[in-house]
C-alpha cells in the first residue's frame, strides 16, 4: 500500500490559518489501511483541530467526509456539493488523492494533512515497512524475493556494504534488517549462494521517476 503518516498537529493548525469553513476529507483505501486518513482518523482529527484553532482565537467550522478512493474521479465527484460550502479542503489521502482533489476543485485551496513516504506492507499489527521503490525494473526474481532498492539504505545491487551489524541489522537503524543479510540467508538456505557472485551492472533508472514523470497511454483501453 501507499504509506502515509499524519502531519504534526501544529503544522496542520498553522496551514489552516485564515480559513473559516474547512472540509476534512479522508480516504478509505491506503490512507485508512495505514491509519493515517481513514474514517477513525478523520473523526478524531476534526475535534482536535477545532479545539486547537478555537484556543488560538481562530474559530473554525470543520465538516468531514470520507471517499472510498481519493485517487479516482468518480469518487472525487461525490463531494462536489460539500466542497462548494467550504473555503478550504484538508485531505488525509496520499499525495495522489490530494492532487486529485486539487485538480477537480481547482478554485479552492486543498491542503495535505499527511506525509506520503513509502510503498509498504503491514508486517504485523502496527508495523509497516518498505517493500517497493517503484524503480521500474523489478529484480526481486534474482534477489530471492527481497528488494534491495527499497530495503537497502543505499539501494546496493551487489551485496551488503561493510555496515551490516553483528545481529544482521542495518548500520542506519538498529531496528531495520540489512536486506542483503536476508537475501544471503535465503540464498544460502536454498544452497544458491553462488548465484549472487554474478555482478549486476549499473541499473537503468529511466523507467522510474528519474526518467521524468510517468505517463502511460494504452490505446486499446481508451474510449
Amino acid at each position, binding site marked *: 500500500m501507499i504509506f502515509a503518516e499524519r502531519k504534526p498537529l501544529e503544522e496542520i493548525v498553522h496551514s489552516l490559518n485564515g480559513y473559516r469553513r474547512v472540509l476534512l476529507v479522508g480516504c478509505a483505501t491506503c490512507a485508512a489501511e495505514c491509519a493515517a486518513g481513514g474514517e477513525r482518523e478523520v473523526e478524531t482529527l476534526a475535534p482536535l483541530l477545532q479545539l486547537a484553532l478555537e484556543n488560538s482565537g481562530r474559530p473554525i467550522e470543520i465538516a468531514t467526509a470520507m471517499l472510498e478512493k481519493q485517487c479516482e474521479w468518480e469518487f472525487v465527484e461525490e463531494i462536489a456539493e460539500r466542497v462548494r460550502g467550504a473555503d478550504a479542503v484538508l485531505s488525509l489521502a496520499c499525495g495522489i488523492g490530494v492532487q486529485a482533489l486539487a485538480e477537480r476543485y481547482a478554485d479552492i485551496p486543498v491542503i495535505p494533512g499527511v506525509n506520503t513516504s513509502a510503498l509498504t506492507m503491514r508486517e504485523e499489527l502496527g508495523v509497516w515497512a518498505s517493500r517497493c521503490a517503484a524503480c521500474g525494473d523489478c529484480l526481486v526474481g534474482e534477489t530471492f524475493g527481497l528488494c534491495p532498492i527499497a530495503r537497502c539504505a*543505499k539501494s546496493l545491487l551487489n*551485496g551488503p556494504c561493510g555496515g*551490516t551489524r553483528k545481529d544482521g541489522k542495518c548500520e542506519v*537503524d538498529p531496528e531495520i534488517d540489512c536486506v542483503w543479510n536476508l537475501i544471503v540467508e535465503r540464498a544460502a538456505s536454498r544452497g544458491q*549462494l553462488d548465484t549472487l557472485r554474478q*555482478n549486476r551492472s549499473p541499473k537503468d533508472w529511466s523507467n522510474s521517476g528519474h526518467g521524468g514523470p510517468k505517463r502511460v497511454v494504452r490505446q486499446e483501453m481508451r474510449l
Partner: protein
Amino acid sequence: MKPYSGSNLEKVLAAGHFAVTAEVGPPRGPDREAMKNKAVLVKGIADAYNVTDNQTAVVRMSSIAASKLLIDEGLEPVMQMVCRDRNRIALQSDLLGASALGIRNCLCLSGDHQVAGASGKLKGHPGAKNVYDVDSVQLLSILRGLRDEGLQQGGDSIEPNAPLFIGAAWTPLATPEEFRTLRLAKKVDAGADFIQTQAVYDVDRFARAVRRAEDMGLTERVAVLAGIIVPTSAGMLRYMDANVPGVEVPSALIERMQTAADRKAEGIKIALELVEAVRAIPGISGVHLQAIEAEHLLPEVAEAAGLLPRPLVA
C-alpha cells in the same frame, strides 16, 4: 602484475615489496595549509596516502582537490570516491578530472550513509538526499571501463584512456561473514587491483578469511592491504568492537590497553605486533595504517615496524 597506471603504489606492489598506505583526512574548511601540514607530518612513511571522501557523511574539502594538494607536496594520493553523493555522470567527470590532475589511485566505496554525521559528534547533513545511482562494485567496473576500454559507462568513448590503479574495500568479518569472500570476488571481477581491509585486531579470524580468499584464487588476482588502526585507548577498542561493523577486538587486547601504564606506547606496540602478524599471512601484500585523529603517531609506528624507508621504484 604489469604496472600500467603510473601509480607508485602499483609499482611498489608489482616489484614485490610489502606496501604501505596511510590515511590523510581533508580538513573541514578550505584550508590549504592544514592539508600541507598533514602531508609534511606523514611524508615518506607510505607508498600512497588515502584521501577520504566526506567520510562519516561530514562535508570536508573534496577528495579530488585534497589529493591534488598532496601531489603538490610530493605525496601520492589514493583518492577515495563514494557512491553516496554523485551519479554516474558526476563520478566519471570527476574521475577524468582527477586523472588529468595526475591522480592515479582511486578507492571505490559505497560511502557512509548521510545519517552517520560523524557518529553524532557533528551535525552533518542527515536531511540530505543521497544518490547511490551505482554501487561500489559497479563503480569499480566503471573505472575499469575508463582505463581499459576507453569507454564511459554509457558506451561513449574517451580519449585517451584514464590510467588508474583501482582499489576497493573489504570487511571480511562483517555479517554475513559467509558472503564476504564472495563480495571480495565480485570486486575483483569488477576490476579491483588492490584491496584495503577494515581494521584487523583479531588476527586469527582475519587469517582464516584471507585463507578463504586465497582458496578462491583471489589473492593471486588482487593485492590485499590489511587495515591497521593504532589503538589509543581501551575505550576506543571497546567502542569499535561494539559499534563498528566488521571490527572484532579480542578482549585480551582491550585488557592490555586498559592496564597499560603508558597507553601511547602500548598502542604503538600493539600496532607493531599487528603489522608483524598480518605480514606473516600468505596473501597479504601490505598494510593500510591509520591513527584516528592521531596521525602524528604514524611515523613512529612505521619506523618501529621496520617499514621504513619506503622503496623507490622506477
